[in-house]
């Protein structure tokens, strides 16, 4: 396993799961990300130990006449990494809101 690096995408996905979006499609909707971005991010976070996934109870799902779903939740390590994720997203927000970052740096 390679070293984990928090990116804007993984930060977004981690925060979505922390906010209670616990299934793949819910995370995609909450983050506005396509499947080819959201699911790989979920897998990277799980491999890094920041998320863990569980399968819901098969009998309960079948009783409702549907297949069981995979549920994602934060691990203790994930909760520790949450401020890091928030900082990453805040950095992006600042970049988007700053109308003249290049001039400011050059000044």
């Amino acid at each position, binding site marked *: 396993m390679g070293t984990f690096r928090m990116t804007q995408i993984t930060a977004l996905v981690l925060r979505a799961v922390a906010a209670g979006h616990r*299934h*793949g*499609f819910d995370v*995609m909707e909450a983050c506005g990300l*396509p*499947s*080819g971005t959201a*699911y*790989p991010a979920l*897998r990277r976070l799980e491999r890094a130990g920041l998320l863990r996934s569980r*399968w819901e109870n098969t009998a309960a*799902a079948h009783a409702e006449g*549907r*297949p*069981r*779903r*995979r549920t994602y939740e934060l691990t203790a390590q994930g909760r520790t990494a949450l401020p890091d994720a928030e900082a990453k997203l805040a950095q992006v927000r600042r970049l988007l809101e700053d109308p003249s970052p290049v001039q400011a740096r050059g000044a």
Partner: protein
Amino acid sequence: MDAPRLWVRSVSVLVPGPEREEWVEEWDGELAAHGGTMAQAWGALPDAWCLRTEGWTMEGMLRDVRAAGKALARKPFFTALAGITLAVGIGANTAIYSVVDGVLIDPLPYPESGALVSVNHTAPGLGVPVVPHSEGSYLHYLERFRALSSFAVFDEDNVNILTAGAPEQVGGAVVSHAFFDVLGTSPLLGRGFAVGEDRVGAEPVAVLGYALWQQTFGSDRGVVGRSVEMDGVARRVVGVMPEGFAFPTAAGVWVPMSIDDADPDLGSFNVVGIGRLAPGATVEGANTEMQDLLLRFSDAHPDEISRDVLEQAGFRADMKPLKDLYVSDVRQALWVLLGTVGFVLLIACANVANLFLVRAEGRQREQALRTALGATRADMVRHYLAESLTLALGGGVLGLALASVGVRGLLKLAPVAVPRSSEIGIDASVLLFTLAVSVGAGLFFGLFPILSYRRPDLSGALKEGGRSSTGGKERHRARSVLVVA
């Protein structure tokens, strides 16, 4: 099973085996919980592809390519045989495609060339596919066309030029005044022909081609305005065309026609018409207008071309894209030729695939060792593909070299002159074609050893030197398929 779930199962082949079952279950669960539309199910494809390529890093791919290069270098005879076979197949395809590209696909080298049309007639009843214009029909159409923004006629003719040295014969064209306007090309020096310069009594003038200007006049910019004797007539040079302009193909000098407005030749249909569609006009609309004008011309000159003659000969307007005038004769032949060399490549690929299968049989011990050291099926697939793609790309480079040399020879051997031959060459689209063909060929012949790969019986293969693998039957079957192909 509904279509979205069927789709998920179809694309699940991309997902590595150990993860596949749970992956399908997760997608089933999410689709069931969110309505399960086909639009949602499409998302399974990029997700599956991401899973398939997760371990594919640039570093890993380079390592595969290096290993493939070493493996191929260890078997120089095999590599040379397979590489040359592929180079011949890919080279033949590249050579023919470069002709197809230059002749059929590339647009004509003039501004907004899509608006350029051939403005002529056809008379299938006489067995004549293209009937051009007489001076009279040219003047008739010129005054009346609305669907064309410009219209001109020309005839190819050699011109004898007398300079300070010896007389020189060059290819030339006799043209009407709007000829350069139709083609949308301005002279490099001076000007083109003015209105009235193509009529009887006008001052004799000429426009030189770039090559003639360079070779005969030493690129002297002062040639414009100078008098040069052409076919015994002193003509004032009014312009020099830019490099690369050659229409009609062999023309190196252009002189204006000499039409007598009062008594134009009505019955000699020997000057070819070209035009530029007016903004918003279509070829079909312009053709309808031309047909109407043709009937009016016939009514005005029944002695030259009566309605009866029109009907008997099937004589009618035939406006079409200018490119079609030159390439329609060779279009079908070139596509057939491209299809034929496609089959040659297919046969080359089948032969190389067979060589790969034979080689794979001799590498069972190596496979067993790799597997024993932890290589997965995906690793073996990457290993095989790296070898086949490296070989195919090498064959592609060699084929490209063969094609660039061979295409000129092919053109010389052609039984008929190939139109637009000066535009045939190796350009970006030909390079892209060669790359696509090479990668396609590599995937094709690399596929057979992959499909026939079975996890080897480790102990048997290692103990007995590779004679007891379970892949033998599959490989034999694959080779039989290739022999049939």
